[in-house]
């Protein structure tokens, strides 16, 4: 981009107090409608989770780490719990792994729906689709409340399994919800993805080529939206993902429309995964008791989990105490935000495109801030 003299460049700030910005301040240097530079200024919701986790034993640690991405709670808790299990060298019973996969996939659907609603509203004008996604989360929240006891931040996983059994009496209610949801997805596609004006606003906007996606470090659906098939559930199957057949969804175009389409198809895929998991869930114990006051063996473990926003890793290092010595969390949104900040350098971005591009990356600023 031609370097404008600083006189003509106007720096607009979308502060944390802004109808669309979320907990972040985004500084945009524009010359008229053309965007020269995007600088996300994060840190507004930094709670120092890594420091807190250094003072929590492995049973307590699940609660703070879940607050990192409230909308996608189970996947974050799963990565923490798997790291702890790897250090302890224990393997949760089969049934617990199936329950975990079901809850994680439901969380993926909830998170994609939430991100989808925001992305729809980012294109402007308060479309009805924005609140349909909130309405369609309701049946899943109700199901999660029956299984775990709350609608958000379940604190349901513990090293060695889960806290409660999967109640069999809600099995057909679960399957009915999945059928209802599949029909709702149909309404989204016909009302929004085939919406001419949405296509004109989202197609060929914020194009991310595959080599740029890898070089800049895009994560999860944004990487797969550019055609790069990197999915931890397939590359390094954890829990019981190797016993469930599903396909990794990629879209070749790499623009905002493709990223949203990847999330949409991943929701369809998650429904299939949940159905298979419910069908062949074995009976048996759902938890292997691990006392919270147990001293961890010395060692380290890096667990990778495919959250809704991308690959999240928890590197837990323990020096023999009951509390881990150091926990390093690899946050996908921090990588996504860097890609967004480099967007004006790889494609032409107009001012009205910035919310569309930003929310096609489905950012969750608490995840970047930790």
């Amino acid at each position, binding site marked *: 981009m031609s370097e404008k003299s600083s006189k003509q460049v106007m720096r607009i700030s979308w502060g944390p107090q802004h109808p669309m910005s979320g907990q972040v301040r985004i500084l945009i240097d524009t010359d008229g409608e053309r965007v020269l530079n995007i600088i996300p200024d*994060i*840190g507004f919701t*930094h709670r*120092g989770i*890594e*420091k*807190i986790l250094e*003072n*929590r034993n492995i049973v307590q640690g699940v609660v703070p780490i879940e607050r990192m991405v409230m909308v996608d709670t189970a996947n974050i808790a799963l990565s923490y719990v798997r790291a702890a299990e790897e250090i302890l060298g224990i393997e949760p019973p089969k049934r617990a792994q199936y329950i975990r996969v079901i809850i994680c996939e439901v969380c993926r659907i909830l998170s994609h729906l939430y991100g989808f609603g925001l992305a729809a509203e980012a294109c402007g004008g308060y479309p009805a689709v924005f609140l349909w996604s909130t309405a369609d989360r309701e049946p899943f929240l109700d199901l999660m409340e029956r299984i775990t006891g709350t609608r958000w931040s379940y604190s349901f996983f513990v090293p060695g399994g889960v806290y409660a059994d999967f109640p069999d009496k809600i099995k057909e209610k679960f399957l009915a919800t999945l059928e209802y949801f599949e029909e709702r997805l149909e309404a989204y596609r016909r009302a929004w993805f085939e919406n001419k004006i949405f296509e004109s606003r989202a197609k060929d906007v914020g194009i991310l080529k595959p080599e740029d996606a*890898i*070089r*800049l*470090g895009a994560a999860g659906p944004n990487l797969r939206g550019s055609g*790069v098939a*990197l999915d931890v559930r397939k*590359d*390094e199957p954890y829990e019981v993902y190797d016993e469930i057949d599903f396909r990794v969804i990629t879209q070749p175009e790499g623009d905002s429309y493709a990223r949203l389409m990847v999330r949409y198809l991943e929701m369809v895929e998650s429904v299939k995964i949940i159905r298979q998991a419910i069908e062949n869930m074995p009976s048996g114990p759902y938890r292997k008791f691990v006392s919270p006051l147990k001293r961890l063996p010395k060692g*380290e473990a*890096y667990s*990778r989990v495919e959250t809704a926003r991308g*690959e999240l*890793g928890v*590197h837990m*290092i323990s020096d023999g105490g009951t*509390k881990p*010595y*150091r926990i*390093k969390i*690899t*946050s996908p949104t*921090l*990588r996504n*935000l*860097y890609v967004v900040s*480099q967007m004006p350098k790889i494609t032409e971005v107009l001012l009205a495109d910035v919310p569309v591009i930003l929310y096609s990356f489905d950012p969750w600023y608490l995840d970047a*801030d*930790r």
Partner: protein
Amino acid sequence: MGEETEKKIIEAIKSNFQDAIEEAEVLRPKRISITVRNNKMFEVARFLRDRLKFDYVLSVGAVDYIKENRFQVIYYLLSSKEKVVLMLRTNIPRDKPFTPSLISVWEAVNYHERETWEMFGITFKGHPNLTRLLLPEDWEGGYPLRKDFKLSSSEGG
């Protein structure tokens, strides 16, 4: 599936950099950890990216071993082809926390290095703008993630 690819990678690294590598081991399938001497960081990083195709940066972290008076900076790398995670580590003394920034090798480490700098006080030489990322601009409370950081609230745990 054994660990042939991981062993091959270790052999490739060892054969090119005998002296620079302090230790290289396969933690478990798809996890490699190599510790590199600080002055050779740049060459090893360039070798990893060009020849062994570790092109995707997951993140950059550090660990404060206060008893052994050293920091350990860890680069979490992923090769998008073999889908193997490599932890590139280097140890630096606590009183002289300097390490070369690998931003010219992997552009994506920009934000991660800034965060490690503000949390641990490890300066990455050659980083274009080592400024605050998460903490407020006017923060003078020291480096939070260091072990000797005073916790004011009822933390303790």
